[in-house]
């Protein structure tokens, strides 16, 4: 496996995985994944359906904990600490590493309550402070202008794209360092997709983004690093330009040139 070690010199590693193996029951879903996620960059994970990219991204904030029969080996270092150590507080990890899901999943509450959900959970009770957080998060997720007048209305009345940006705002409201996105645009139309892509490019100024995508063009457009996965293995990982233009593995080349998928 090729690791573009050169890139690490002038960048800061936020997440580093070491020999991750994961099983669902008896199915071996991830095999020996070792990779690094760089701060303030967008890292894309691509690969055909079922290759394990969504599973891998859920490893980063321990969302696989809630799946019965899921067993994981190996280490994931976040800011130097292994998040799978027994003494780690998974709540703190998920606060610092946010997640956006494939299908927008707003709570059946008002727009405001959706964004305020995280801060309230983390004991922000002052009204003024909450309002400030909500406003800031909605602005960051480029939704503020569209929902300014309907903060009290149900989030389920928003369009799909708006709902997804609301979910991003909800994630941003707890001030994470890393945002994981699991095919965030797969349920959206091209215009909504373009908005989210713009948003991602903006977000990386303040955050580190890891995105799983089905769409190779999307990976090429917005990411700085790309990992190509196949059958639970990380086949190739490096700078996006390099992975797309001069892939080192034949499998990668075949995939990005559309010979299988």
């Amino acid at each position, binding site marked *: 496996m090729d690791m573009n070690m050169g890139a690490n010199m002038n960048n800061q590693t936020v997440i580093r995985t070491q020999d991750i193996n994961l099983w669902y029951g008896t199915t071996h879903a991830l095999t020996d994944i070792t990779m690094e996620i760089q701060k303030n960059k967008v890292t894309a994970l691509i690969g055909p359906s079922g290759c394990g990219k969504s599973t891998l991204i859920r490893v980063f*904030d321990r969302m696989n904990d809630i799946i019965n029969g899921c067993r994981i080996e190996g280490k994931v270092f976040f800011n130097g600490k292994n998040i799978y150590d027994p003494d780690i507080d998974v*709540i703190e990890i998920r606060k*610092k590493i946010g997640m956006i899901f494939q299908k927008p999943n707003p709570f059946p509450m008002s727009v405001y309550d959706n964004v305020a959900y*995280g801060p309230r*959970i983390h004991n922000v009770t002052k009204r003024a402070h909450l309002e400030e957080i909500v406003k800031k998060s909605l602005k960051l997720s480029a939704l503020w202008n569209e929902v300014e007048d309907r903060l009290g209305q149900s989030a389920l009345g928003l369009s799909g794209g708006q709902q997804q940006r609301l979910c991003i705002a909800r994630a941003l409201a707890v001030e994470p360092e890393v945002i994981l996105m699991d095919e965030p645009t797969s349920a959206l139309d091209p215009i909504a997709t373009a908005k989210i892509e713009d948003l991602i490019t903006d977000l990386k100024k303040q955050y580190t983004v890891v995105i799983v995508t089905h769409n190779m063009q999307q990976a090429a457009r917005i990411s700085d690093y790309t990992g190509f996965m196949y059958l639970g293995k990380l086949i190739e990982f490096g700078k996006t330009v390099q992975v797309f233009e001069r892939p080192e593995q034949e499998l990668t080349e075949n995939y990005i040139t559309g010979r299988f998928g």
Partner: protein
Amino acid sequence: MRGSRHKSAERIIEKLLLASATIAVIIVFFIILYLFRDAYPAFKEVGLVKILTGMKWNPVGEPPSYGAYPLVVGTVLVTLGAMAFSIPLGIGSAIFISEIAPSRLKPGFKFLTELLSGIPSVVYGFFGLVVMTTWLRITFNQPTGESWLAGSILLGIMALPTIISVSEDAISSVPTDYKEASLAVGATKWQTIRNVVVPSALSGITAAIILGIGRAIGETMAVMMVTGNAAVLPEPITNVFSPIRTITGTLGIEMGEVAVGSSHYHALFALAVILFVIVLLVNSSALGVLMKLNEKFNPTEKKSRGWIPRAAASLLRRAFWGAIVVVILYFAYCRSGVRGSLEAGLVLAFFSVFVIILAHHPFPRHEQTAFFAAISGSAVVVLILLGVILYYIVSKGIPAISWEFLTQPPRDLGRGGGIFPAIVGTLYLIGGAMLIAVPPGVGAGIYLSEYAREGKITRLIRAGIDNLNGTPSIVFGLFGFAFLVLYLNFGISLLAGMITLGVMVLPTIVRTTEEAVKSVPQSLREASLAVGATKWQTIRNVVVPPAAPGVITGIILSVGRAAGETAPIMFTATVFSQRFLPHSPLDPVMALPYHLFVLTTSIPNSIQNAYGTALVLLVVVLLIYAAAAMIRFRYRRTVRW
């Protein structure tokens, strides 16, 4: 550190929920054990085989004989009859409400169905005895109307609301996408219902039928009041006008009179065990079907260690429907007076054509019209049934109602005076039952859905609770009598009644809570966990609010059930001569359902006060329902999907 504080709080909550689940489970297994303990001497003395195959049930004869075969057959026949009538009506009405009725009418129709389930079984029995059996006797020119048919009709009506509401929930929750996908390829609405909606909702509909069967098998009061209770086999076996006696009826009639500790006493417990096992078999096989169906619709699940291979299951299904058709044909043949083989052949040919049309669907449009007519018709029949029952109870009950009737104790064995002690007694009983059952029930439901690891133990717990859920209320009555009244020496008392009723509704509360909580989409939990909420924060803020209406519905149904039940309290809490309010929980009480039962069956010339009591009982139960429905409505408005 914040994390550790979180963790200890989380752990305490998890422990509390685990404790609730444990209490629920212990109660379940304790009841089962206790029943077997008291039944054991009978099995030892008489022998299981002799009890099951003996043709004569005569416990007071010399020597006594404990042959339960006619009782078992009676139970099966009454239940089959009830299902033959309520399954088509119930599923038809459910499809009508969710798919065909104009959306303006839906809430009204659902409300009326709930009304039907709010009518206590003793009121059904009362109606059956004073109105229906008379009607049957005159219409069909029989010596008596107290018969298998009367029992089946009454049980069918009683099972309807369960079947309708549970199937309706299942059908309504089929995603619109499925329907649109089907309509988009040019399917008619009926084809969509038949091929997409009903199959998707099949597990729910099956559950509805199981619950309906459970209700029918376990019903005591109504059956006891209208079936004539002769422990004989119908002659011939298809003679629906024959009187019949069920297991529950036997328990209801004889338990009150039996000498404690006698061989008759143990024989009755043996009957209760047999009843329990029948319910267990029905439930387990039905649960098996349910699991198969779940697998069919969630084919991603790897483990398909089914107990019936799929091909065999399909064969069995065909055989089952085939058997039903044959039985109907045979029955029609016997009844119709058609005797020549030519006529029989014609009838057979007619049915064959009908079946072939059903199987091959050559006329989709006409088929749609016909089925929609049948479906709407079933809904209309249900409404008429409700209307007739309410008309009788209300129109004849109102003249009995007066201020004195509501506020005075009874006089002259209930022929005069009022029913005040019974009203208060009923309120005490249900209040106490809910205090006992709701906290552990809801806690256990949440625990099972959110915390319990899916595994053998969880499955065993769920199966135990499910089986207790289908367990006839009279069995709880027996348990309460043997354990609370006799063993713990509470005597016939308010407390014993509260506990018996509480234990009876506990499994319902556990399972409805679990189902409601489980139905909250996983994506919402993930969204909450992903912003760093703890498990309990997620449950409290994201999972419980949308599940609350479902949980409350479960509790409402339980309250209604507890208020109207007679069988669990007639040996544990109520004394007919109780003219005053209880001074302590250890005093006996009077309760509305039991008062009505005694007036109807044992006190001649008390019909006016019986109608009055029925009306008051009905109103009390419906007020509870109305209050709870309002709470649910408010929840629905604040939590809008």
